[in-house]
């Protein structure tokens, strides 16, 4: 299995609080991704990174920010969480080459009350 871990695995928090999710990889891959998965919507891309300090927005980036200060870590931050951000969040990594598959972590289940 690709070396990718997400933390925490579960989190419950209140509306308006900041939340940071962490994705850590041991594969030294340049490309990393954050998705959210909701019933009926499938996986939707939030942000992605193509190197240290190089990030870009995905389809559903509003309300989220990311940072990548090291190759192995990609952080997703909800500055002020809202109930609509209750979801399961997945991180993925990808090797070089456009047709390379993405390898996913096991997700963070985030509930915002």
């Amino acid at each position: 299995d690709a070396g990718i871990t997400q933390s925490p695995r579960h989190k419950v928090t209140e509306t308006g609080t900041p939340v940071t999710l962490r994705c850590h990889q041991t594969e030294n891959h340049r490309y990393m991704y954050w998705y959210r998965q909701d019933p009926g919507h499938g996986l939707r891309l939030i942000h992605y990174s193509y190197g240290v300090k190089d990030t870009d927005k995905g389809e559903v980036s509003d309300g989220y920010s990311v940072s990548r200060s090291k190759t192995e870590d990609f952080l997703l931050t909800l500055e002020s969480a809202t109930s609509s951000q209750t979801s399961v969040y997945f991180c993925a990594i990808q090797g070089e080459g456009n047709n390379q598959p993405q390898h996913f972590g096991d997700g963070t289940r985030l509930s915002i009350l």
Partner: protein
Amino acid sequence: SQKIEQNSEALNIQEGKTATLTCNYTNYSPAYLQWYRQDPGRGPVFLLLIRENEKEKRKERLKVTFDTTLKQSLFHITASQPADSATYLCAHLPGSARQLTFGSGTQLTVLP
């Protein structure tokens, strides 16, 4: 924009039969289509990739076809087993970009 559509209804089949899942895309033909398997509480796991110029790809009991005329990919599991029960996702990747677009998945249950 490109949309990927999978049959959102769950598919139940009997053990030993062939399961066939459908993935349709709406606009331009993607350079690649990928298929993933997702088990409850886990992240998706890559299964197969098929290129635009390939008609068929096989891996053990899995087979994927790509029909650019119908704008459709079919995913087959032959001799299905209860362990094949999962949600299967298709995803397209335009040749010039790295952003995968996923379908919402089809939940397959193989009944013993």
